[in-house]
């Protein structure tokens, strides 16, 4: 994969970055999904979970590093190939938490179809949905460029 350069609409994306800040803080303490450990392995669950959280925090830092001073000047974002996996994972984690929080009252079918009447949504849901779609788009861009 080559580096990817994208110019984003700063006025649209910047508020989404603000919106996900609480989720990033949540992801410093809990996994995006609860780990599926058997009861008998509870004593290992702590180590397992801490390892996942460590990767998660690192991945989210790489995602947020995209939105640097250059982004806030020009809207330009540069994705380096060595960070692609981390950014994909971070986007997945944040989307999972958005589903659990801002989008908790929306049905799976509605979210999957993307057929949403924005005027029916609260302010929080609208922004959460926009962040959810933005991160999905970012993932799709990266995956398309991976050319596996």
């Amino acid at each position, binding site marked *: 994969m080559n580096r990817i350069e994208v110019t984003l609409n700063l006025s649209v994306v910047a508020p989404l970055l603000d919106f996900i800040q609480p989720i990033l803080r949540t992801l410093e303490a809990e*996994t*995006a*999904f609860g*780990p*599926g450990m*058997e009861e008998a392995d509870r004593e290992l669950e702590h180590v*397992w979970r801490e*390892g*996942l959280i460590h*990767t*998660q925090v690192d991945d989210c830092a790489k995602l947020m590093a995209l939105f640097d001073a250059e982004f806030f000047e020009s809207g330009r974002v540069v994705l380096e190939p060595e960070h692609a*996996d981390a950014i*994909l*994972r971070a986007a*997945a*984690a944040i*989307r*999972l938490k958005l*589903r659990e929080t801002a989008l908790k009252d929306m049905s*799976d079918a509605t*979210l*999957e179809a993307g057929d949403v009447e924005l005027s029916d949504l609260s302010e929080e849901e609208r922004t959460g949905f926009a962040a959810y779609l933005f991160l*999905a788009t970012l*993932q*799709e861009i990266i*995956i398309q460029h*991976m050319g*596996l």
Partner: protein
Amino acid sequence: MIAPRARAESPLPEIESETARKLADRWRVVVLNDPVNLMSYVVLVFRRVFGFDEVRARKHMLEVHERGRSILWTGGREQAEAYVYTLQQWHLSAVLEPDESD
């Protein structure tokens, strides 16, 4: 837990170890459906983690999507745990199950 038992037909005690059983038995790596992760993302993860080609990865992704779950790998406990951990790092809903097939 170790429970020594002596059989009449053998002079050697038969040792049962739940730990040894867990390590020796076959285990399944199962991915469960979730309403969030993109299909393209799931395919990528399967290719990355298991080395599947596109066709096989898509087959498993569709199985997850349409049936709610797919068995991605079966084998020893330690490797199965490693796979589940890696899939969870990629934020897929992955669990371990004992393989009860013969």
